[in-house]
């Protein structure tokens, strides 16, 4: 893990910008590769069992997170748009609801939550506000978090998720230029077979 464990640093060529390359054997790699480990199958199964065992906490957790989110969206409405603080709180709040749903296997919550995250991102980064779009998403999210709809597969409410996606696409993606640049960079590095 430390410098002493490095198997050497490559010296920079004369005139070249100074670049130090170190080949480091970390304690993590050494120890993880010891004998007596667990197979992937067993490790994943044990970990998934743990998540299943705590799934009963999900309703309380999501209710709490939804209550906070409702308060933040109400604050955004009262203030007529996002501030740096409410953007951060709303985005985090929406992500929490989405991520909990995803971790416990509620794909509809994940999908609607993801759409809300994206909407908040696009609106706030683009210095825009649409209470109607936010409210529509919040109503959908409240619905899919109810016990009746929680376990519904996303495909069963495709119309709902498609409508939400359409709503989000009314606002430009602030990362579009970055995505294009990365795609071009990657395309130029593809090695011919």
């Amino acid at each position: 893990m430390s410098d002493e464990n490095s198997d050497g640093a490559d010296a920079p060529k004369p005139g070249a910008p100074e670049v130090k390359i170190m080949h480091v054997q970390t304690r993590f790699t050494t120890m993880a590769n010891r004998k007596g480990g667990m197979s992937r199958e067993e490790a994943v199964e044990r970990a998934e069992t743990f998540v299943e065992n705590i799934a009963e906490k999900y309703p309380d957790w999501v209710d709490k997170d939804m209550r906070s989110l409702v308060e933040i969206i109400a604050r955004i409405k009262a203030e007529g748009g996002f501030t740096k603080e409410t953007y951060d709180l709303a985005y985090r709040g929406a992500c929490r609801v989405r991520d909990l749903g995803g971790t416990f296997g509620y794909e509809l919550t994940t999908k609607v939550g993801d759409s809300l995250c994206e909407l908040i991102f696009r609106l706030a980064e683009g210095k825009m506000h649409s209470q109607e779009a936010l409210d529509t998403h919040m109503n959908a999210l409240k619905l899919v978090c109810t016990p009746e709809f929680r376990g519904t597969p996303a495909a069963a409410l495709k119309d709902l998720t498609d409508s939400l996606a359409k709503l989000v696409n009314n606002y430009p993606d602030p990362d579009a230029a970055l995505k294009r640049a990365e795609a071009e960079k990657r395309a130029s590095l593809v090695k011919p077979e």
Partner: protein
Amino acid sequence: MSGQSGEKENGPTMSSKSLNFKGLNFMIADANEKIRGIMHGLLRGFGATNVIDAVDGEAALRDIPVRNVDVLFCDLNLPKIDGFSLIKQLRADESNAARFIPVLILTSHTQQRNIEKSRDSGANIVIAKPLSAKAVYDRLAWITEEPRAFVQTAGYIGPDRRFKTEGLPNGVGRRAADAAIDLEDEPEKVVSDDEMEKMFEKR
């Protein structure tokens, strides 16, 4: 458990060998206690015996050398010191024996800019929330199987980000058949796990 996040049955992150996490010190730096709880469970399920919490970036930075942390999982939006700064400070501190430890970012903020910033701050890999056992395990396995050289320049300290064109082992890698990612045409608004892996993979 959904396993929606990066769940893959084939590919460069799929490990067939056994891994031994006993005795290793894992740190989870995340302000969200639910995420920390879930991560504890996943890591214990994988056989980890020592899992340490940090509720903010300051605590993480302070405790990493003291607790001999071997692997850091950190959220980007940490209070006090955010994830990017935490990694940069950790990597830059030459007196810190833990500066080379693998750092895995756990984040919901999978916009392109955050993934690039994570890579450029010196993280080894990004794991998108929601968390799944398979995604977390496979990324840990990937780090053990594909160790990267550490690069230090005036503007960057961290795992080597340079591209190599020979591709990853097992015939999976950056070749024409591996389908270049065209993010512009992707219907998803954020960067997927696969795309993130490609941005971080050994180059």
